[in-house]
């Protein structure tokens, strides 16, 4: 286990060290201490390493992550795992706005609640939130899967493209072009896998699926009221 004290080493040294690990590194376990809500912690990683951040992080923790497994042993600020490509990021506490924004791959797990715009513009990432999510989540979400074990706020999935949304609790309101859909066996299977990987014991059968009605995919004057 390698330990980096952020308060002592500074952000540049931390990221430079973590980014310089390659696929063959034998330094696979990293502990970051004293994050103190700093921004851009462990961004741009590209190696199969495990990084644990002991405390809460500021904006964009784990941004553009590839391959690495990052655990925030605290809560995460806005834009955690933004544009993640692959790997896994786990937030033990809560996450602020835009968690997993534009993420293209990998798995983001939020053990607490996520704020507004969770999964905004997601492009292939899988996100599992053990608690609730705020308003405008999955706005313009293109692909990937958002799983919410609690409730969802207003305007879920507004202007949704092809992302799949699963919510166990209530949905305060659906956004434009987002509709409730049937759960088919393949959705149960997909959910089962994601919940297991995210360490949740929720039952897939208890979830409701939401997706795009695909009515806004082409301009149509009769839909103008939806915009």
């Amino acid at each position, binding site marked *: 286990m390698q330990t980096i004290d952020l308060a002592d080493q500074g952000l540049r040294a931390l990221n430079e060290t973590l980014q310089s690990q390659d696929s063959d590194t034998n330094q696979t376990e990293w502990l970051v201490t004293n994050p103190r809500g700093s*921004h851009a912690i462990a961004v*741009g990683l590209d190696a199969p390493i495990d990084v644990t951040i002991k405390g809460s992080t500021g904006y964009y923790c784990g941004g553009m992550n590839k391959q690495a497994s990052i655990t925030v042993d605290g809560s995460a600020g806005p834009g955690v795992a933004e*544009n993640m*490509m692959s790997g896994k990021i786990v937030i033990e506490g809560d996450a602020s*706005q835009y968690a997993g924004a*534009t993420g*293209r791959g990998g798995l983001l797990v939020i053990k607490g609640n996520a704020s507004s715009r969770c999964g905004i513009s997601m492009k292939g990432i899988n996100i599992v939130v053990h608690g609730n999510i705020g308003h405008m989540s999955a706005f313009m979400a*293109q692909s990937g899967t958002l799983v919410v074990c609690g409730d969802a706020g207003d305007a879920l999935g507004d202007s949704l493209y092809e992302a799949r949304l699963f919510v166990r609790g209530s949905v305060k309101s659906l956004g434009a072009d987002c509709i409730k859909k049937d759960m088919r066996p393949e959705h149960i299977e997909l959910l089962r896998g994601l919940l297991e990987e995210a360490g949740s014991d929720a039952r897939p059968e208890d979830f409701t699926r939401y997706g795009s009605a695909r009515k806004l995919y082409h301009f149509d*004057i009769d839909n103008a009221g939806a915009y």
Partner: protein
Amino acid sequence: MDDHQKNNPPRTMPPRTMPIQSATFSNPVNAEIRRAAATGIYDIRGGGAKRRVPHFDDLLFLGASMSRYPLEGYREKCETSVTLGSRFAKKPIHLDIPITVAGMSFGALSGPAKEALGRGATMAGTSTTTGDGGMTEEERGHSEKLIYQYLPSRYGMNPDDLRRADAIEVVVGQGAKPGGGGMLLGQKISDRVADMRDLPPGIDQRSACRHPDWTGPDDLEIKILELREITGWEKPIYVKVGGARPYFDTTLAVKAGADVVVVDGMQGGTAATQDVFIENVGQPTLACIRPAVKALQDLGMHREVQLIVSGGVRSGADVAKALALGADAVSIGSAAMIAIGDNDPRWEDDYNALGTTAGAYDDWHEGNDPAGITTQDPALMARLDPVEGGRRLRNYLKVMALEAQTIARACGKNHVHNLEPEDLCALTIEAAAMAGVPLAGTSWIPGSGSF
């Protein structure tokens, strides 16, 4: 003919009023009303503002005279190089000429068109820029210096392309549509375009107008920190804004940590946007330069943070005027497209078949471009030879640089950056006020001092 007939000639038709077209309800206006009534949707088109606005044409250089010495036109050196990104980036960009090629997306443009832009810019010693569709191999491979746009849509965004870019341009807005997002209609969402954007093929795609994970300059400062951390503080970071509030936008971009600020006026083009947006939102390029320069000067950052101006730059004279007003470089989009063949009269029959004419064609979103530039149709794309297109762009860029040098030498300057507002006068009161230079033949700069 008796006297009566002589004094009373037969009545002819009474004099009639000449048919007068209304200036308010002009034929183009009426045509648009009929089009809207028939279709029920606003007009979408490409390009920038077509209306006449005060522009570089309304300025003149004074030249050398008794109190200014000119430089010899073909002998004495007049530098054109520029360095962008010297504030924070470890690897600033050095360009031979102060003219860059602006961001245009793969998707809006064909692969060969992007290749032609890359080839031309590289041969001319300057940079080209990606767009809303991500980075293609065509343009990375053929662009020695490539600026990678970081856009609200984040289509194709990934850390590997960020690292192989030569600079990053965070796009807050563009002159054609400050406050609007991109638009690419289904006809142009080919399988390749769809794949790069993670979207289903054939759907109308409306890009976001706001970034998904930051709002405002305080957030942007943190976003820029993240981008620098991901790229090891190597890349210059540009912030591009539409010509909305250039003084404050420039100030806030500098505050957020930009190395370079790009200000794009309303004549700057777009691949597709509502005509009402293009023609009615944003300020003319000429009106944006002095406020942006003033912001940099007030911060003590002029020349430290570089200013790139774009929107309707067409010639070396325009380049020289923008630089004289304080810009470090200019950027061209529409002009570069015309150089590689856009709206060329050789395709007049094809333009006529589309109900338009060479020079006026702007339905780029429909994907039927006769010149093969703004299309994803393989047969049309094949009309553009990227090697020949690149050569034409190179020539055009070189001519613009030569023209700017010609003017600079005439003003006695050994670097185009030494041009200054004092070298200029304005032909109209409006241009004098916007550019902050005297009306020709007077010492009057409207808006400064008193009457």
